[in-house]
């Protein structure tokens, strides 16, 4: 466990804090940052219990998958015409979860939003593990999962290549690129922090592992100069990438002539939904972490407030997209579209649509209240509703469309089986297993970046420096690189 947290200002009356000037008043110096963040790495009984639960869930999922491989995809509840079910829903769900991590780590970095500093490491790790989870589902969905590599273009004895006009091949490129770039981004950001761990570690085995992972990083000015540039460019690449990935995922649907799917609104609608759901998961993860590790003076109420505003904004974008879909169907004059959208809210799957609308459109409106935005308990509860609502959003997109296509004789129904539910549970086990392992091996917050926010020790107060050399040193207390963007280059 971490050391006892110092008192920090819990002011509920600071409404609009300019996020670019975020400071951590309860953090005195660099040593405190090292001590408290590294202190979170000690395993505890509660952590082992959570890890055991996650592994158990994963084992349930693996068992169900093995049963499915043995018995065939029929055990998964697929029933014509609904041949996409929980696996595709959950695939889209986890890809979406990953998006907020990149939003927070890359996009907010480019916009110099200071509140990202304390939460981005968790969000980045969440991204990598969420995309790792998502990547499993198209494979789970295959009848012969061991042939998944046929989607990758490589010279082969079959002399055949993937169909590059197929959205499924687009998916492969987008998801693999996203996984590679987000993992790289996470690791590069971790290198200086791993070097800090290496220098503080006393256990020789762990020290050797950290030494290997830190690649001999020394915190020299040469390393930082190239690091800040590389980090900036990776952020610049990640920003359009995050927008492209969920657009490509949305093409899986939008390219088909199925009512409810064939819409040009899908790419922005999916991207906004992905960021919204990811922010929900960030709250689900970061709020218990800040409480459990007593890191409230790092992830302050101001940070939560700012993130909640983003959540509210994306919720409203998603809500607008929901309503626009109805408007487009109404104005299209296309009776299939109109019938489908009527069926969405009043038909067989109306309950799912109303869960979606309430969780994603109505409940987040509570964030207009500053009191609720600064209430971690409410944010945590709301985040659970958002996670639920966003899973059901994908359910509403997939199942009602397929079960209610053009001809009434084609209409059908769908009911997930215990195999679907077990694999869904297993995906949460897989995700949280990796995340729990991560938070006990590597720092949950970016030590080097937090130090940028903490004013360094100064020998002379600003404005009164008796400089032995005589010239104006231009030293200003507390001026970091403002998020790793150097003056030069």
């Amino acid at each position, binding site marked *: 466990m971490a050391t006892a947290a110092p008192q920090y200002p819990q002011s509920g009356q600071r409404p609009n804090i300019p996020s670019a000037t975020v400071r951590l008043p309860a953090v005195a110096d*660099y*040593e405190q940052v090292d001590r408290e963040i590294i202190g979170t790495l000690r395993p505890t009984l509660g952590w082992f219990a959570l890890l055991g639960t996650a592994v158990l869930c994963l084992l349930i999922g693996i068992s169900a998958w093995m049963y499915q491989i043995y018995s065939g995809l029929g055990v998964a509840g697929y029933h014509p015409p609904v041949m996409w079910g929980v696996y595709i829903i959950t695939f889209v769900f986890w890809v979406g979860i990953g998006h907020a991590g990149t939003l927070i780590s890359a996009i907010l970095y480019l916009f110099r939003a200071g509140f990202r500093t304390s939460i981005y490491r968790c969000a980045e790790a969440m991204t990598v593990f969420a995309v790792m989870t998502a990547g499993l589902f198209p494979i789970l969905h295959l009848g012969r999962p061991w042939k998944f590599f046929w989607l990758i*273009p490589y010279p082969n004895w079959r002399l055949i*290549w993937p169909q*590059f*006009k197929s959205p499924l091949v*687009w998916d492969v*490129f987008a998801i693999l*690129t996203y996984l*590679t*770039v987000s993992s*790289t981004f996470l690791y*590069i950001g971790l290198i*200086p922090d791993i*070097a*800090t761990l290496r*220098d*503080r570690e006393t256990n020789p085995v762990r020290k050797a592992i950290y030494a290997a992972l830190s*690649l*001999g990083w*020394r*915190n*020299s*000015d*040469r*390393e*930082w100069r*190239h*690091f*800040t*540039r*590389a980090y900036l*460019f*990776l952020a610049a*690449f*990640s920003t*359009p*990438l995050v927008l*492209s990935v969920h657009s*490509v995922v949305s093409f899986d649907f939008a390219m088909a002539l199925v009512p409810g799917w064939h819409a040009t609104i899908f790419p922005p609608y999916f991207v906004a939904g992905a960021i919204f759901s990811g922010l929900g998961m960030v709250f689900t993860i970061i709020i218990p972490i800040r409480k459990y590790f007593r890191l409230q003076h790092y992830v302050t109420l101001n940070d939560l407030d700012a993130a909640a505003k983003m959540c509210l904004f994306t919720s409203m974008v998603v809500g607008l997209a929901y309503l626009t879909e109805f408007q487009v169907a109404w104005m299209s004059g296309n009776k299939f579209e109109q019938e489908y959208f009527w069926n969405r809210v009043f038909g067989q799957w109306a309950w799912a649509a109303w869960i979606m609308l309430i969780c994603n459109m109505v409940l987040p409106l509570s964030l207009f209240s500053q009191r609720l935005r600064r209430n971690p308990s409410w944010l945590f509860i709301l985040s659970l509703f958002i996670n639920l609502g966003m899973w059901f959003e994908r359910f509403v997109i997939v199942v009602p469309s397929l079960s209610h296509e053009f001809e009434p004789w084609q209409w059908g129904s769908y009911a997930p089986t215990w195999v679907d539910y077990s694999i869904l549970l297993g995906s949460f086990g897989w995700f949280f297993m990796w995340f729990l392992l991560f938070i006990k091996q590597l720092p949950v917050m970016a030590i*080097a970046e937090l130090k940028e926010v903490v004013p*360094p*020790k*100064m*020998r*002379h107060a600003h404005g009164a420096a008796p400089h*032995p*050399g005589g*010239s104006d*040193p*231009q*030293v*200003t207390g507390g*001026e*970091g*690189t403002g998020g790793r963007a*150097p*003056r*030069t*280059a």
Partner: protein
Amino acid sequence: MPGIIAAFHELDSAVHAIEDLRRNRFNEITVYTPTPRHELEHALEPPPSRVRIFTLVGGLAGATFGYWIAIWASRYWPIVVGNKPIASWVPYTIFGFEVMVLVGSLSTVFALFALSRVPRLTMTVGYDPRFSGGHFGVWVMTTSERAREVGDLLRKHGAVEVRHEA
């Protein structure tokens, strides 16, 4: 080459020391800092990083490869889909873009490693674990004749420790 390593606990002391060293024509200076600081950069005035060149070349190469592989494979195995051209540049922009990002990012990482000279199997002489904590380190390469001068200068600016390293 031998040199002097000094540890500073205060940022402004380190900055003043660097400025004085440069004024006295000691230009082989390496600074260790737990976090990047503008003040140190101003004092050192380093040249621009060349990472961007690698990023640009990698990105362009990736975009070219992404378009090429899709067009080449489509022509190698020509199947008309949806009455679209065999090589349809609009959907193939997805491959051009994704591979541009992939190769551009990996090139950036390669540049970071190559230019920073990592991975490094052994620590540089003079490195101290305190430099990833709360101290700033200033390493000056100098001859043994001028070592005393450098040591005195660093101490004058408040170095908490000054060591001669061979």
